[in-house]
């Protein structure tokens, strides 16, 4: 469904000058600052898959999404979405994809939510009967009824995000790009958003590219993740493989009599009772627990290694 090969994006901006005439010099300068946001990324995503597209701040995730939607033109490399090159065939691509950017909204701020949703129906030419059906389904899934007629500026973040999800899905696009759709939401709202994504994927076989910093989203929704940093792919594969390949050793954490807490790495294949015996021979143990590595610690470790 989505094929990306050696995708690269270099941002080129006129150099900014300081000083009183700085803005003017910036306007006429021929000197440029360059920044490589995406640097030779390749991956393929089959139809109906939900993929977590992860990476630390500034890794190049949003830039990739902007290129996938056809808004940004790649500096180099190849993109194909549903057999089309997004930036060349913008109109057809536009009909095939829905986008949510958690950090910004496609809803008209000063108008009731329903106006923005109707506009989406018009822009994508959704037949009236299908629109009514879609809207009904969105309202049920996302609980929009309570604030359908409220101006968007009066909505809470979670309500607004639900409105944005509805707007992105009203025309049933086969592909959905979600860039931090749960940012700033409370646990219940996050849950609602996750359920909506899972449901959309299950019913419509929608292909989903999900960017998030909340690994609980990933654990709930994705079986596969693509990890990037500094514009390059660090890992592409199943979450289970990632954990097996990169998991740090399990740790024995003990609380000692003098209120000190200490952690001991449990080497692979070693005996835990033996380790406990060894520790208790030297210290008085008040409490102990074994810490399993979680996705977060795995990803932290990969980020840290890529920093070096």
């Amino acid at each position: 469904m989505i094929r990306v090969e050696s995708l690269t994006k270099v941002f080129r901006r006129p150099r900014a000058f300081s000083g009183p005439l700085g803005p003017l010099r910036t306007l006429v300068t021929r000197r440029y600052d360059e920044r490589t946001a995406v640097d030779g990324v390749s991956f393929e995503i089959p139809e109906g898959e939900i993929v977590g597209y992860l990476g630390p701040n500034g890794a190049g995730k949003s830039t990739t999404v902007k290129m996938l939607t056809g808004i940004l033109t790649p500096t180099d490399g190849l993109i194909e979405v549903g057999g089309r090159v997004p930036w060349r065939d913008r109109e057809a691509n536009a009909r095939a994809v829905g986008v949510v950017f958690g950090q910004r909204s496609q809803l008209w701020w000063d108008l009731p939510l329903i106006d923005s949703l109707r506009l989406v129906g018009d822009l994508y030419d959704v037949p009236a009967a299908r629109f009514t059906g879609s809207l009904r389904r969105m309202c049920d899934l996302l609980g929009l009824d309570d604030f359908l007629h409220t101006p968007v500026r009066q909505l809470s973040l979670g309500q607004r995000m639900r409105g944005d999800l509805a707007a992105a899905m009203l025309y049933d696009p086969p592909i959905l790009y979600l860039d931090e759709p749960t940012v700033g939401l409370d646990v219940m709202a996050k849950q609602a958003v996750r359920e909506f994504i899972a449901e959309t994927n299950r019913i419509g076989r929608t292909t989903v590219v999900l960017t998030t910093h909340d690994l609980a989203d990933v654990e709930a929704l994705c079986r596969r993740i693509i990890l990037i940093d500094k514009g390059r792919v660090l890992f592409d594969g199943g979450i289970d493989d990632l954990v097996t390949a990169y998991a740090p050793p399990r740790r024995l954490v003990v609380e000692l009599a003098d209120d000190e807490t200490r952690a001991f790495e449990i080497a692979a294949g070693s005996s835990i009772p033996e380790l406990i015996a060894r520790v208790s021979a030297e210290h008085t143990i008040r409490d102990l627990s074994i810490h399993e590595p979680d996705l977060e610690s795995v990803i932290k470790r990969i980020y840290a290694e890529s920093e070096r």
Partner: protein
Amino acid sequence: MIRPLAGMARIGLRFQLAYRSDVIMSVLALVAQVFLLRMVWTSLYGGQGQTRGLSLEALLAYLSLANLQAFATSPIIPRITHFRIRTGTVFFDLSRPTGYLPQMAAFQAGHTAGGLLMLAPAVPVVLLVGTITPTAHPVGYAATLALGYVISLMMSLLICVIGFWTLETGAISLLYRLVSHFFAGTMVPLSFFPGALGVLADALPFKYMGYVPAAVYVGHISGGEIGRAVAVEVAWIAALAVLLWAVWRRAHRRVVIQGG
């Protein structure tokens, strides 16, 4: 093709109605401006019958109409585009199956329609202050005004597109507002502009938003001159269309969406 544009026009209209209090304020300002202009010009005429072929009555009618027109057609889309580029929401506009410029044009048209709706109560007042009587050239007036609106719309679109380069249209649209109002002749008819200023005002397209239709209405422009004005307006529209197309193509290629 029609439905997306109708949808966008509806949003423009709703947007205008959502800022009702702003509109009421500017309608008050409009009425005040027309009233002040009437006072100033009446005293300037000091009982003279005609100045440069305009009687005081015709001049007052002209000023009222020109201001009414300038108010009704004043553009919103440079502001909208400015805001949407700055916040990055322009991303969504660009990801639609319909082009960005048609979307903005439709938005502006809807917004203007909303403005006319709310302007309606003020129209009798302005007409009264300007002592406006029916025109001898209704068709010429309608034609020059409609084409003038299209020119104004295309100029606004041009300002929007420039925003894709500068990522900043706040200052430019303020400047545009000042320049366009001045050269539209909302304070002083263009035929009163001296020497080089008059030549400049005549060469610029802003006069089609104010001076030309209003002057046709009051009979200051008449006969074959009307036909010529219409022809030049059509030429302007063609030229602006080519320019817009060329500029937009380049802007589109270098689109940058801010923030992530």
